[in-house]
């Protein structure tokens, strides 16, 4: 495990020092500012607007950070062949991949934590405690772990940086439309469309599991009422399966 931790820490430092992430951190700051401004200018429900925009911003920020991580490391690892120096060391490919997952997620959490503290602090300061916001933010972080594992699995399979980024991006988009896909399937579409929808529904992750922002104002919803066990099991199970696929692809990959 110590080698996994070494790869994770190395990945974390490599990415944190990347100028792309610095630029993105500035953009995140801007996003928070816009959310604050809109909430301030709105009539009636500034809390709701600020919280909705904040949570949407958290998800967008997590996704963009992940896409940047995948793009930067695809370039250094696969195209510039920096990965050769690591895979020829006494490190298994599974350890390397797991270390990468943890390192990427740590960077993602760093960005999300900063945003969460800012937005959560603002809400607490102006509107009092709102525990469900912290829960929603935690679920975004769990969702990002799943997407990170899946994105890295794509990186091991894909033969280009663009492919990796696009697959991850569309997985995230489609993952948030699972209820619509199920609705379309219930309407019994023609066989080809049904095949495509079934493939999407059963293969891609259902990211709606981690989405609380549409239910935040449900008066019956409490922190204790959330199906924590199911959510954790789903996140862990899907991430583990994605990790196994990525590991298998990395073991089979030819490094020309």
């Amino acid at each position, binding site marked *: 495990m110590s080698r996994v931790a070494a790869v994770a820490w190395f990945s974390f430092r490599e990415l944190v020092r990347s100028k792309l992430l610095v630029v993105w951190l500035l953009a995140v700051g801007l996003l928070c500012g816009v959310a604050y401004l809109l909430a301030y200018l709105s009539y009636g429900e500034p809390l709701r607007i600020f919280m909705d925009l904040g949570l949407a911003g958290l998800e967008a920020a997590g996704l963009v950070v992940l896409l940047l991580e995948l793009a930067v490391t695809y370039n250094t690892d696969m195209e510039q062949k920096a990965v050769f*120096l690591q895979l020829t*060391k*006494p490190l298994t490919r599974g350890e390397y991949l797991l270390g990468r997952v943890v390192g990427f997620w740590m960077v993602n959490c760093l960005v999300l934590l900063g945003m969460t503290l800012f937005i959560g602090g603002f809400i607490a300061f102006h509107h009092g405690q709102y525990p469900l916001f912290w829960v929603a933010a935690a679920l975004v972080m769990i969702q990002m772990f799943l997407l990170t594992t899946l994105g890295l699995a794509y990186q091991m399979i894909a033969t280009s940086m663009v492919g990796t980024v696009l697959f991850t991006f569309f997985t995230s988009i489609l993952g948030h439309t699972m209820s619509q896909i199920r609705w379309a399937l219930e309407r019994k579409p023609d066989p080809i469309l049904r095949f495509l929808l079934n493939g999407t529904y059963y293969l891609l992750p259902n990211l709606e599991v981690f989405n609380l922002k549409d239910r935040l104002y449900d008066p019956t919803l409490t922190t204790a009422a959330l199906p924590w066990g199911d959510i954790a099991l789903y996140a862990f199970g899907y991430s583990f399966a994605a990790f196994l696929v990525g590991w298998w692809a990395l073991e089979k990959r030819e490094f020309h």
Partner: protein
Amino acid sequence: MTSPSETALRVRNLSKIYRHNNPFKRHREAALQPLDLDVPSHQAFGLIGLNGAGKTTLVKILLGLLTPTTGSVEVLGGSIGSRVIRARVGYLPELPYFPRQMTARELLAYYGYLYGLRGKGLTARVEEILEIVRLQKASGYRIAEYSKGMQQRVGIAQALIGKPELILCDEPVTGLDPVGYREVREIFLELKRTGTTLFFNTHVLSEVEKICDWVGVLHEGVLRRVARVSEVMAEKLEMDYWVELTGVAADRLQGFAHAETAARSGGFQVSGRELSGVLGDLSARGITVSGVRPLSSLVESFFLRTIGRESDLMFTNRREARS
């Protein structure tokens, strides 16, 4: 060549066929034809060949980065897939790439950690290696600020950090200036003295002559020949030489086989087989020879003859002679 216990690398019936699965252009390309190779422990083996000969493919297979189509590879008596074996192997790629925001010290500490070094032992080893590659002063700078030669030295450092018994290098002197060549050569010679086995691909044939005990010629995916460098040296009669004459009266050269060239250029080219006879003839005529110099390195001559390109050697020699 050697018994198994003395063999660092044992390759049997190894071949590699690349399959290009582009839907518009499907084809197979044989990068390596079935080959056998033994590299003795504690010695330096230089693999030479033209671009595209299959040298890098062979090194990548030895390291487990590529899977052979047929055959087997034994590294230090085991499989390169084993962590224990990889802990005894160092690798220096051609133009190594490192994350540009990291410093050399951080990179070496990381790679050392992967080799199982920890705490004070790791710190001491990093310092030792930085001293060997002469990067102590620049070790705190980010890789982005390094010259190509300095990056190559970080590459050498990471290959040495785990005190490997075997080092595989792919074009180790690419991008280095003449001083860099010399420094790398000294590092390799020191490694040889301490018993490390070296295997490297190179285009720089003179380095093979200076560092290696064995030389192999890979041409179009076929291992054409493996020989001791000392044997190649003994084949020096095959080399061509330039014999330099100064201030020789034309009448003394009358009837001499190379008279015309000697009169025009102040010297002439002669093959190694003819050299002693020609020198005797000149001596008998009372002509003083002011110098004899080889027109190619021995390994270059060996290489070109092995791949059937003697004509290139003759062309180079004529061009050099004219200049």
